[in-house]
C-alpha cells in the first residue's frame, strides 16, 4: 500500500554514543547502543516498538531478542550500505498498511575493530566469485573506482576535479567535532596522498570505522506527541542493478541511481531548486559526481564544475554532505544510516554545521559497488 507524502515521520533519531574506533563494543551492541539512544530521543522503551528493520542475515531476529522487542512487522532487506533508505521506505508503507505503528530501524557495524564482525569474501561459485574475484580485486577500494577512468574520459573530469570533492567535504568536517578527519586539506595534499588504487589516492577513499545509528518512524498523526520536532517523509525510491561493477550498463551513470532518485523526488512533488540540503553517499570521491548528475541536479559531465565552483561547500547554494561525508565523517561499511541521520539533524536544525532554514533534505544512498540505491526526501513541514 502506498503512503502519502508527509503521512509518516521520523520521531526518533540517534547515532551510537561514540563513533570511529569503538573496540569495546561488539557489532550487536553498536546496534543496541544506537537503538537505545534513538528510543531515548523519542521518549520510548522497547515495549513501545512493534516493527523492526535492520540489515544482515538473521539480524531482525537477533536485534529483536537482544533489545526485548516483539515485532508485528520485520524487514531484513540487505542491499548494502543504502539498505536503511529502503527500510525507511518499506516502514512507511507498513505503517500506512497498518502492519505496525512504531518502527525502529537500526544499524551497527564494527567495521574497524571487527568485534564479532568477520568480513566474508564472495563465494567462488557466485557470479562475482567466478567473473571478478579471480582477477585480483580486494574489497571496495579496488572495485568501486573501476568506472572512474571511463567517466573521466567521457566527461573531461580531471584528477584535480576528483580531489576537489574531498577538499570541499573536509571543509564541512572541519565544523563537525564528531568527524573522524577535521583538518582542512588542499587539492595538492589530496593528490600527494598515498596511491591506493589508481586513479584514487588515500584521501579520495573513505576510512573504515565502528559505529551505528537508529531511526524511529510513526504515523504523522502521532508525530507531534514526541519530544523532538517531527521530520516528515515526503518521498522515497529504490532500485538495484548488479552485484558486479564490471557489468553495470553505463560506466558514467548508475541505473539504480536514475531509478531511485527521480522516483523519490517525483513522489515528493519537488523540483531540484526546492532542495535545501543534499546527502550523497560517498564511499569514494566519484560518488557525489554520479549522484548530482543521475539525480538531475547537474547535466552529464557538469558535476565537476558544480562542485569546483563552490556550490556544495559551506555557504554554497546546495550544501552537500554536511557532516563531512563518508570521506571525512565516518564510514562503518554501511554509511547510509549516517547520511539519513545528518538529513534528520539538518531538518530539525540540530546539525553541527547547520545550514540555515532547511525545509527539504534529500538523502541518496548507494549499496555495494553501484549495486543498489535508495533515496529519501525529508521535509520540515507536513504537506
Amino acid at each position: 500500500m502506498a503512503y502519502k507524502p508527509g503521512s509518516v515521520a521520523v520521531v526518533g533519531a540517534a547515532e551510537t554514543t561514540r563513533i570511529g574506533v569503538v573496540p569495546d563494543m561488539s557489532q550487536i551492541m553498536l546496534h543496541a547502543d544506537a537503538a537505545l539512544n534513538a528510543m531515548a530521543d523519542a521518549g520510548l522503551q522497547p515495549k513501545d516498538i512493534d516493527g523492526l528493520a535492520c540489515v544482515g542475515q538473521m539480524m531482525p531476529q537477533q536485534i529483536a531478542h537482544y533489545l526485548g522487542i516483539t515485532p508485528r512487522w520485520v524487514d531484513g532487506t540487505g542491499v548494502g550500505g543504502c539498505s536503511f533508505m529502503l527500510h525507511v521506505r518499506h516502514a512507511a508503507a507498513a505503517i500506512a498498511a497498518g502492519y505496525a505503528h512504531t518502527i525502529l530501524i537500526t544499524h551497527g557495524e564494527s567495521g574497524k575493530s571487527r568485534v564479532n564482525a568477520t568480513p566474508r569474501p564472495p563465494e567462488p561459485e557466485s557470479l562475482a566469485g567466478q567473473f571478478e574475484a579471480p582477477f585480483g580485486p580486494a574489497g571496495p577500494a579496488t572495485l568501486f573506482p573501476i568506472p572512474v577512468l571511463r567517466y573521466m574520459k567521457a566527461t573531461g573530469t580531471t584528477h584535480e576535479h576528483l580531489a576537489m570533492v574531498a577538499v570541499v567535504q573536509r571543509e564541512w568536517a572541519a565544523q563537525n567535532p564528531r568527524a573522524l578527519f577535521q583538518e582542512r586539506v588542499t587539492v595538492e595534499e589530496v593528490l600527494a596522498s598515498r596511491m591506493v588504487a589508481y586513479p584514487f589516492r588515500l584521501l579520495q577513499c573513505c576510512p573504515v570505522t565502528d559505529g551505528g545509528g537508529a531511526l524511529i518512524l510513526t504515523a504523522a498523526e502521532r508525530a507531534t506527541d514526541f519530544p523532538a520536532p517531527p521530520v516528515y517523509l515526503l518521498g522515497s525510491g529504490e532500485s538495484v542493478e548488479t552485484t558486479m561493477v564490471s557489468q553495470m550498463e553505463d560506466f558514467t551513470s548508475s541505473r539504480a541511481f536514475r531509478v531511485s532518485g527521480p522516483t523519490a523526488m517525483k513522489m515528493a512533488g519537488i523540483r531540484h531548486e526546492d532542495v535545501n540540503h543534499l546527502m550523497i553517499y560517498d564511499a569514494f570521491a566519484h560518488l557525489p559526481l554520479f549522484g548530482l548528475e543521475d539525480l538531475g541536479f547537474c547535466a552529464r559531465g557538469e558535476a565537476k564544475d558544480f562542485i569546483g565552483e563552490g556550490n556544495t561547500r559551506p555557504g554554497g547554494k546546495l550544501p552537500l554532505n554536511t557532516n563531512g561525508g563518508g570521506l571525512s565523517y565516518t564510514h562503518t561499511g554501511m554509511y547510509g544510516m549516517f547520511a539519513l541521520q545528518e538529513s534528520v539533524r539538518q531538518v530539525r536544525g540540530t546539525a553541527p554545521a547547520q545550514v540555515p532554514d532547511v525545509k527539504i533534505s534529500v538523502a541518496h544512498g548507494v549499496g555495494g559497488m553501484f549495486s543498489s540505491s535508495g533515496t529519501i526526501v525529508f521535509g520540515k513541514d507536513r504537506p
Partner: protein
Amino acid sequence: MEALHPFFLPVSKLAEIPFTGSKPEPTPETKHFWDGCKSGKLLLQRCPDTGRAYFPPRPFSPFTGNRAVAVFEASGRATLYSYVIHHREVPGFTPPYAIAVVELEEGPRMMTNIVECPQTPEALKLDMPLEVVFRPVDDSISLPLFRPLKEGA
C-alpha cells in the same frame, strides 16, 4: 623492474607461476564457459530474439527471457574499457597491477587482467585494442586474460 612484473611476462611464462589467487568454481550454468577457456576458446551466448551477445553466462536471454540461447565462440578481440591499478599486496598478485574491464568486439564487457604490458597509466590507454589469452591455473580452470593487440595482427 617493469620487465620482472608477472603481468609483463609472456603469458606462457606467467603460466609457470603457481596461481594463488581466488579460483572460480563453475556452476551448471557456467561450466561451458570455463570448459571453453580450458580449450582456448572464449565462449559467449546470444539472445535468439535480439541477436545480442551477453555475459556472464546464463541459460536464457537477459533481454527477453527466451531460453533458446546459442553458444558461440567470440573473436577474442576487445578494447580496454576502464581499470584501476591496485597498489597493495593481494594473495596471487604483485602490486601494482591493473584490474581491468574490457569491452569485447561482440559487445559484452568482462573483468580481467591486462598481461604482456606494463601496469602503468601510460601503457594502459583506454580503448586500446586487445586480444584474449588464457592462463592455465589448474587442471580444470584457465583464466581469460587480455594482452595488447600487436600492430597488423
